């Protein structure tokens, strides 16, 4: 990449630690209409934007694996419950995965670029790849990029029937970032690369972390950490092992957990400035593996 991608601000709203939404969405009518994931997503975006002292963003790019689950189920249920009669359109309107990106644009009156990606475990990575491309194409712009997913009672129950919780714990969350291609005093981290891998049968049983890192061409000649969020067993060199943190122990399993991973990585770089590089390796269930590389810019 020719231009550096700086993380200016970041925010996280987690299912287990929701803020008082009144503070961020004061209008009680608007708040009541919103499902929980919309409130989580919009609030997370607002926190990231409030901390950003620069000019208005030039793009709003989001990723979600499951979309607005609760509204989707609510509308589906009403179809059967009411035998297709006199249905309330609210939950249909809010079931579309671009609802949160659209709500943010509506609140801000922001007419800029606005896209939502919905591709399972690489939804947030897709949003990042779009953002990074745009930051290469245009000078001096900032983008709001985020990932979010909600765990509904039904989703948790269905994944339980599928046996997912035998190896993982349920998670949910909404993380947003203001990123740009101009360095500013608020920066601590830059994104070096985002890679999504082709599904590969040889990777399906044991993931070889060293070979993944080799494949993306990263050199580990400084102090580093690996945030690992892959359900599968992995192999690593003994030397590497002590630097690995299983971040899904903190945030749980959901398709856009890598957005939490990126948020967490920024926190580590702030608190432990001697660390130069963090590699976030993620796999949701048996889907594509992604690797996000973040650098400490003071290094």
């Amino acid at each position, binding site marked *: 990449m020719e231009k550096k991608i700086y993380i200016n601000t970041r925010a996280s709203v987690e299912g287990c630690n929701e803020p008082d939404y009144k503070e961020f969405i004061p209008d009680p009518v608007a708040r009541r209409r919103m499902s929980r994931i919309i409130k989580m997503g919009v609030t997370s975006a607002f926190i990231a934007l409030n901390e950003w002292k620069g000019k208005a963003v030039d793009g*709003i790019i989001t990723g979600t*694996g*499951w979309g607005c689950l609760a509204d989707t189920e609510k509308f589906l249920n009403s179809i059967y419950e009411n035998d297709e009669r006199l249905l309330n359109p609210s939950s249909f309107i809010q079931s579309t995965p671009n609802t949160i990106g659209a709500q943010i644009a509506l609140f801000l009156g922001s007419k800029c670029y606005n896209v939502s990606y919905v591709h399972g475990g690489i939804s947030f990575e897709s949003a990042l790849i779009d953002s990074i491309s745009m930051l290469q194409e245009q000078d001096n712009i900032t983008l709001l990029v985020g990932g979010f997913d909600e765990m509904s009672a039904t989703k948790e129950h269905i994944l339980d029937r599928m046996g997912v919780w035998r190896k993982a714990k349920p998670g949910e969350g909404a993380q947003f970032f203001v990123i740009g291609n101009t360095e500013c005093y608020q920066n601590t981290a830059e994104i070096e690369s985002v890679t999504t891998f082709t599904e590969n049968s040889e990777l399906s049983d044991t993931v070889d972390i060293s070979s993944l890192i080799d494949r993306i061409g990263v050199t580990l000649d400084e102090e580093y950490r690996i945030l690992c969020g892959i359900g599968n067993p992995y192999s690593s060199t003994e030397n590497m092992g002590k630097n690995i943190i299983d971040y899904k122990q903190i945030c749980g399993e959901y398709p856009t957990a890598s957005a939490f991973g990126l948020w967490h990585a920024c926190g580590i770089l702030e608190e432990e400035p001697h660390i130069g590089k963090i590699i976030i390796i993620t796999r949701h269930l048996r889907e594509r593996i992604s690797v996000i590389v973040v650098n400490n810019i003071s290094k």
Partner: protein
Amino acid sequence: MMYNDVIITGLGVVTALGKGVGENLDALVSSKGGIAPLTLFATNHEVVVGEVRMSNEQIVDILSLTKGKIYSRTTLLGLLAAKDAYDDAGYSELNQKERSALKIGLISATSVGGMDVSENFYKEYRIDKSKGKLRDLLGHDCGASTEKIAAYLNADDFVSTVSTACSSANNAIMLGARMIKLGLLDVVVAGGTDSLSRFTVNGFHSLGILDKNRCRPFDDSRAGLNLGEGAGYVVLQRSDIPHHKAYGKICGYANANDAFHQTASSSQGEGAYLAMHGALRSSGLNPRDISYVNAHGTGTPNNDSSEGAALIRIFGDKLPPFSSTKGYTGHTLAAAGGVESVFSLLSLKYGYIWPNLHFNTEMSDVAVVPVKDLISDRSLNFVLENSFGFGGNCTTLIYGSYNG
């Protein structure tokens, strides 16, 4: 920085007009629409739709897929059209060495995903939580159909799915073009697919924007849209990679948000205006360079007034010939931009301007008149194609003729 030029070397489409470019072209030229009563599933609503006249079993046979496996209709329609596009561009015939020398991606768009199959699960599950076949849910996620198409084509060096309601496929094509331009990929199959489902029929019915009769885009008597289903894909590639034909090139694109209402468009068509304006700017063209506009034109009173107002803001009294092809296919939602990109590229290549079916009377509030009868043998240089969606998402693409 040197950017790659992006050309289109393959087209694939399946709609109510038929399977493949040939059947669609025949229907377009003979002004024969595909809107008819819904037969795919039972519903209490009296609706006419643009159904693809093939059962899931027939599509499984055509594609020689493993029988007994569950495929959502969205996946099946997407497979049909994406395979046609890939074959058309000649990429199905690559040997292993040729294939591994290229970075080929698939960027798709869908709004309903595997909802048709999930509905089967949920019908049983809601009554008894231990019921419902879990394998019916494996295709539910929007990304699942994209993964199946990518695997089938062996076009999976990068795979992603856009879901911005009815503007989705245009955004998928735009991302594909940008990734090629930047050198991240060499070839991208891009477009969208959506099947009809009980979920969307009831959703649009609850919003009160379905017309019981055939839709009449831009007509004063218009009373709503007809839902359709289908898929449309284009093969985008770097112009310097060998190719045996080209339908056109991508000259410009832009995405903007109306930021007015979750489902309604602003009366001045701000989002549509900004998308068209941005696409013109990115192409370096003037409004007078555009030979034809393939409008979003859904047939709802709100969309067509808003889009008409935006067209006047862009083109003034020099409005080029424009039409909506939704009267042929119905509104294929996330696939619309893919289907209509194929129609726009056919216009460029063969010199046709498609008629806007069922138009009689100019709208009382916005004075724009679409093309009523087929225009042929017209030399077209640039076609502008609009797709707008819920959430204020508006995306415009501009295609230009290419003789390389």
